[in-house]
């Protein structure tokens, strides 16, 4: 997995979002993109931005559901070729 310490991203409003850590979970059903996200969020600082790459269709419901329940911020969901990129900020 690529450790991308600082990565500039254009978000919807055109401002840049620094991605603190990136998780490439494409093709990895166990423990799965959401589980990997939860683990990285737990060891991150408040304000850190975590990006998850997932080819799993279930992520489009799993990830937003947990992010809402755990009260973090889903910054954006970017469709790519054969996968999606979920960008989340640890809010608390």
């Amino acid at each position, binding site marked *: 997995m690529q450790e991308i310490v600082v990565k500039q991203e254009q978000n919807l409003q055109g401002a840049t979002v620094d991605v603190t850590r990136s998780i490439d979970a494409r*093709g990895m059903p166990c423990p799965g*993109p959401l589980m990997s996200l939860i*683990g990285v969020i737990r060891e991150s600082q408040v304000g850190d931005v975590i990006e998850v790459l997932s080819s799993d269709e*279930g992520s489009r419901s799993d990830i937003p559901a947990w992010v809402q329940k*755990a009260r973090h911020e889903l910054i954006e969901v970017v469709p790519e070729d054969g996968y999606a990129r979920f960008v989340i900020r640890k809010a608390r």
Partner: protein
Amino acid sequence: MPARVVVLGGGVGGTLAANLLDKELGHDVHVTVVDPTGMHDYQPGYLYVALGEAKGHWLTREERTLLRGGVELAIERAIRIHPDAGTVQLERGGELSYDYLIIATGARLVPEAIPGLSEGSFEFYSLAGAERLSQELARFPGGRIKIGVAGIPYKCPPAPVEFAFLVEEFLRKRGIRDRSEVELLSPLNRAFTIESASTLIAPIMEERGIGLTTFFNVEAVDPSAGVVESLEGEKQEYDLLVLVPPHKGQQVVIDSGLGDPGGWLPTDKHSLNVDGQERIFALGDATNLPISKSGSTAHFEAPVIASRIASLIRGTAPKENYGGRVMCFLETGNGKATSLRFDYEHPPVPPQPNRAWHVAKWLFNRLYWETVPQGRIPEGAPFSKPKDPSH
């Protein structure tokens, strides 16, 4: 002058990789396995110890007996890796030089990371923990048993689910099922990580009266109140709490500046090289790959690493890649189990739990010592490399 390969860690991955390299290259390689205890533990057995079905002595053997004669074993603790110098510093002052390094140091349990966890809960991720839990279960008078996860990543995603099924069966056998409750606290929005397997087991859980709480990631335990708390803001009472403890990478990885914040090694998902390190490979639980931390992962990664190092030693381009292959069992109680076989290209298609897979798991457990670490799993056997893991 033989090439020098150092393997840190004598678990399933390290042992197998060392044996395969020695077998392949003979006098052209000198392999040294560095392990702090010199003992090799079969961790999948702890589940059965916890339920009073097995004894611990069956689960540990001397690493020396599992290694080929040409492989050196150093019973030492590695304290620092120096990639630029190509050396590994040992705790008692010695130093080893390597041409190629395999870091197979596994994962350690860090229960102190969760307040109240050690005092208020039980675990079956260590032999001592499993024995303690088995004693507690033997005298359990009935009550609410809650099973949860206190950190991610953790070894063996099926384990908490398996424990839930097997402990429910245990309570029935002890005749205290009617005055007990079993509840699985899942970190996710379903019972198990793999969605197809989760769908398969959900009706069985319901049939057995095993409750499911979703999105419950343990944050703290209050032993005096008998309450476990989640980071999602929920609290639950328990009479007996069984938790998967938090895991971390080994200190040597952290102290060498090679690990991520969890102490896991950033690893290439195909070549298994540690990021930015041509001569260092990561294997098994020690990697940061978001794949299952399981013995089978290490089992399938080891031949890839051995093959790549052999190619490099011979001066040819390494060809083998790790395709993400994993093969896990999931016990569902009442003498049945299912299997989870997948890789990066093929998602799992778990069969309906049946007796055949339960027997297969039992057989694998019994045959482990004579087959797996030595690389003796024959082609065509269920655990060797098929072309399509969905069968």
